[in-house]
């Protein structure tokens, strides 16, 4: 089941630069997308989300872009900080009413180099 794909298992970025994490999906019924950050021995922490009626959502250093025609979303982190080093998961849900189950990608390990 590869409905949500994160094709880059790892990414290294210099501190202060932009980090761009990518996610592709195949299920056209997905209408709500989320990014989670995970440290070892902790649960996923919600970062930012976007509804399919939008193409961009911004929260501080984090911006999520959604391209519905390409079934692609990305997370931009600017500027990147050492504390951003973690595994980032893309997740999606379908149904329109909210609170449906999440389908996760496999994650991208982001390393910020000081």
């Amino acid at each position, binding site marked *: 089941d590869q409905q949500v794909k994160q094709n880059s298992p790892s990414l290294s970025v210099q501190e202060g630069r932009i980090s761009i994490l990518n996610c592709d999906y195949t299920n056209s019924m997905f209408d*709500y997308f989320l990014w989670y950050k995970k440290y070892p021995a902790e649960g996923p*922490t*919600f970062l930012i*989300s976007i509804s399919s009626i939008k193409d961009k959502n911004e929260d501080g250093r984090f911006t999520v872009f959604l391209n519905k025609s390409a079934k692609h979303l990305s997370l931009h982190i600017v500027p990147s900080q050492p504390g951003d080093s973690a595994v980032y998961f893309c997740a999606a849900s379908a149904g329109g*009413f*909210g*609170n449906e*189950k999440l389908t996760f990608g496999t*994650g991208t390990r982001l390393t910020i180099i000081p």
Partner: protein
Amino acid sequence: EPEVTQTPSHQVTQMGQEVILRCVPISNHLYFYWYRQILGQKVEFLVSFYNNEISEKSEIFDDQFSVERPDGSNFTLKIRSTKLEDSAMYFCASSGRAYSNQPQHFGDGTRLSIL
């Protein structure tokens, strides 16, 4: 900030034994979930729970599994007769009001090891 809490953090159980994983969701949340992550694999949905009943379950969630909200605060996952392949991290999550997109908030998980 309110958080989802899970106990125990690590549970070691003999194959065939029953295990109960416990969760305290965020207090004003209405939807509750269990997910699991087998080592090296994706986080997978198990079950969602709303208004005191299961709203959706995955094919993983077979008759060996059950969920319960025994009081106003706890949400439990029971595995009746554990198998080696049940070894995984189990995450509880909760989310807020109905009929709007609300992010799910996760606990730190219970590592279940079946011997």
